[in-house]
């Protein structure tokens, strides 16, 4: 059967599963230590880059374009990744169970990204004299509200992660001793597995999940409106915030596919994460990639057809002008490659295929953020009536490259460290899955029977 890998795990006894995952959770392998060391060094390089950048001060927004791009990139990929746990959970899809924790743990990266977000606030001009979504509100509105949204999103992500891992914390508590036990006992908040506790955890996760989803979209709406649309005079584009949110959904799946691949290949979780997850996610990835094109095209055709000078200039700024090669790269990586590869069931139903597409999208989205944020940041006069001159492309310098490396490895580092606090594979959800799923004979076939509790 296609999901043989999962079948193997599900055939084991629940206690065996707990033991196995907790052992992996506990171990500090040499490989893990090496990874942490490398990431830490790279992160320090990023800090150096950031200090170099700080020497330029905050007057020239364009110099910070790549910094903004990488912050928003983390917002679109890592901070969106919990969606892979949220959406199927709300839709009661069972395949999510082994990967839901891995997805929720990206909430920790959100905390790291929140730190990176702070300098951006110094770069955002006041709203006076320009068109923003804040109209005549206080001139610091975007600074305040964008920060609040980011903070809330991160808090919500962490709360969801914690709430969803209480039973596993309790398991870790029960399977450890000494100071470790004390720590996990604290984290488990007295979890005993009573009916009431189970009832509460379900409702809490459900509520936090919906809240996270809405706040993710809302944060993207604010960031896209304030850091891109608001900085380009005369650019009036109602789909743009939605496009960025959709791009985040697409990237969340890509992020998770790559994470799952890493967990399978190098962290020894191949018993739990198998074809079933890759297959389900690759279908969603195909759908979101098609939607990516659809949202992009819906915006583009209106501007292109309308022939208004302002809109022609905006197209030139972000698509056909100085950033054309970057746009082409994005377009190929985010749409053409996913389409060409994922329409084949054989590719969707494999481990490697979806991972390759996931990597392609992760790279493509990075270029996409550069195209949008660097170009928006390179506009000098934000109070003009309309965009009349398209600024030339801004190329990254050494500090930008260091910052990019540092930010990405910092994100990786925070995730790696978090795996030692929370088990990266969800124990209780897998055990629940084992109860709800039965292989049985049906006429002359063997089929899977899935229980659908209300």
């Amino acid at each position: 059967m296609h999901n043989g890998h999962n079948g193997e795990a599900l055939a084991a006894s629940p206690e065996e599963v707990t033991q196995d995952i907790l052992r992996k959770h506990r171990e500090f392998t040499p490989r893990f230590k090496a990874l942490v060391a490398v990431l830490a060094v790279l992160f320090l390089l990023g800090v150096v880059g950031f200090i170099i950048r700080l020497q330029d001060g905050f007057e020239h927004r364009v110099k910070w374009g790549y910094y903004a791009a990488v912050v928003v990139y983390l917002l679109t990929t890592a901070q969106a990744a919990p969606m892979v746990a949220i959406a199927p959970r709300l839709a009661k899809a069972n395949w999510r169970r082994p990967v839901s924790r891995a997805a929720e743990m990206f909430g920790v990266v959100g905390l790291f990204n929140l730190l990176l977000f702070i300098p951006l606030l110094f770069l955002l001009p006041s709203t006076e004299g320009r068109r923003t979504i804040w109209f005549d509100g206080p001139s610091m509105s975007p600074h305040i509200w964008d920060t609040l949204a980011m903070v809330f999103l991160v808090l919500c992500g962490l709360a969801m992660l914690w709430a969803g891992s209480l039973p596993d914390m309790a398991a870790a508590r029960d399977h450890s001793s000494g100071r470790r036990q004390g720590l996990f006992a604290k984290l488990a908040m007295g979890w005993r597995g009573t009916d009431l506790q189970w009832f509460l955890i379900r409702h809490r996760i459900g509520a936090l999940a919906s809240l996270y989803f809405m706040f993710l979209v809302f944060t993207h709406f604010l960031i896209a409106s304030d850091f891109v649309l608001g900085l380009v005079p005369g650019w009036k584009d109602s789909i743009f915030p939605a496009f960025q949110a959709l791009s985040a959904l697409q990237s969340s799946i890509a992020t998770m596919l790559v994470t799952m691949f890493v967990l399978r290949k190098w962290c020894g979780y191949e018993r739990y994460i198998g074809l079933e997850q890759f297959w389900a996610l690759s279908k969603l990835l195909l759908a979101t990639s098609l939607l990516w094109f659809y949202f992009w095209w819906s915006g583009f055709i209106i501007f292109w057809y309308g022939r208004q000078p302002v809109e022609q200039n905006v197209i030139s700024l972000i698509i056909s002008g100085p950033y054309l090669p970057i746009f082409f790269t994005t377009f190929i990586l985010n749409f053409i490659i996913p389409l060409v590869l994922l329409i084949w069931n054989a590719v969707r139903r494999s481990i490697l295929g979806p991972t390759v597409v996931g990597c392609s999208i992760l790279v493509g989205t990075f270029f996409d953020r550069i195209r949008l944020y660097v170009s928006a940041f390179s506009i000098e006069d934000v109070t003009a009536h309309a965009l009349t001159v398209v600024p030339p492309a801004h190329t990254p310098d050494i500090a930008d490259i260091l910052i990019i490396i540092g930010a990405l490895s910092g994100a990786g580092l925070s995730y790696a460290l978090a795996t030692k606090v929370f088990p990266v594979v969800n124990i209780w959800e897998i055990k629940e899955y084992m109860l709800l799923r039965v292989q049985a004979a049906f006429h002359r076939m063997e089929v899977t029977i899935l229980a659908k509790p209300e």
Partner: protein
Amino acid sequence: MQQRVSLEDRQINRDLLRGVLEHPLWWFALVGFVGLVLLAGVISTGYMITKGIGVTGLNRPVMWGFFITNFVFWVGISHAGVMISAILRLTQAEWRRPVTRAAEVLTVFALMTAALHPVIHTGRPWRLLYWAFPYDFSRGIFVNVRSPLIWDPSAIFTYLTGSSLFVFVALLPDLAVLRDRTTGIVHHVYSVLCLGWRGTPKQWKLQTVAGILLSALILPVFVSVHSIVSWDFAVATSVEAWHSTIFAPYFVIGAVHSGVSAVVTMMALMRWLWKWDKYIRPEHFDALGRLLIVVSTTWFFFFFLEVLFGIYGQESPEIALREMQIFQWPWSMLFIIFLLTAYFIPVPLWLFPKVRRSITLMFWTSILVNIGMWLERFLIIVPGLARKQPLTFSWGTYHPSIIEILIVAASFALVAFLLLIFSKVFPLIPLFEQKEGQLFAKELRVGRKKVPAVIREE
């Protein structure tokens, strides 16, 4: 909470063929009533075509009014079928089974009705030849493919073809059942229609594959149809209110919102009229209600973006337009009704499982949604035109004439009429889906509880 009942195949046949084989009085009464309204619309159309478009309330700034609003509305309703049948089939949602046929048929009839509107709207239907069937090479010109009005008929006819095939493929097994239960000429008609269906494993396989293929192929068409309808408006640079990039997804999700609500309305009616309580159950309304919460909230987000970025530029015509749309009597009243009915009454209600499981409440909320969605299109189309560009001298307003109102009413009658006729000829709930669903339904014992389960289709 699920109330599954196990039924014998024979009983399923008997119950679901009730619409075709029995002839209750209410059916004739309904057809008669609906037919009268339809007749009024046909007469009005004839009158308009002989006298001229002058009999409508249209004028210079407002060149598109009730007909185009209604056109968009019916294209929107037609998104029900694919949403329910194709998407839910591909995502293996079990609860789709009793709903599919009704949704697909609604799609086809709504689309046919929608396609009539542009023809009526031009006032000289015979000129359609130059437009939608542009094979008049004697003049040396082909149609203007740059015009969204050419994309429109292409998309609509593709969608109509696709969804008719969809209905037909899903009908085959049921047609065979009907063939076996009828005599005389009717028997022969069903024999021809069911294409020699014998229910062999090969036929079943082909039918399933065809269904899945059609689902996948029709999805892009489904998205494109309403996107193109939205581009009729959005590419018009001169009408600021229409020139919004969000329009395509906004219209598509709005269409799903109104289409799925229309399916809810239809399901409630089917349950009441044919007493199909065992087939259309509260859990189906529950599932549709959940779907609708997600769909309508996405729709509302897009609506919010549309309004926000409408006034974002702070240009005088846009501000004037929103003033007219939101604050000026009677538009303000329509706007409030629209907001309440399309979102703020139904969606908070649907959050309660009790509401989602109450057929009466679901029926009325779904009707509200469609009142709201009709007004939504109207409030986009007309005030946008009435406040076009800063040349205030030419701004205007619009009052529909009685002729337009009659024709719009008749379009509803036409869809109802076609559905009633369909119900007399074909079963409205697919028999084979029902039986298949029963086959897949299992029960699992989890701890001390029995939990409903399904066999996973591959």
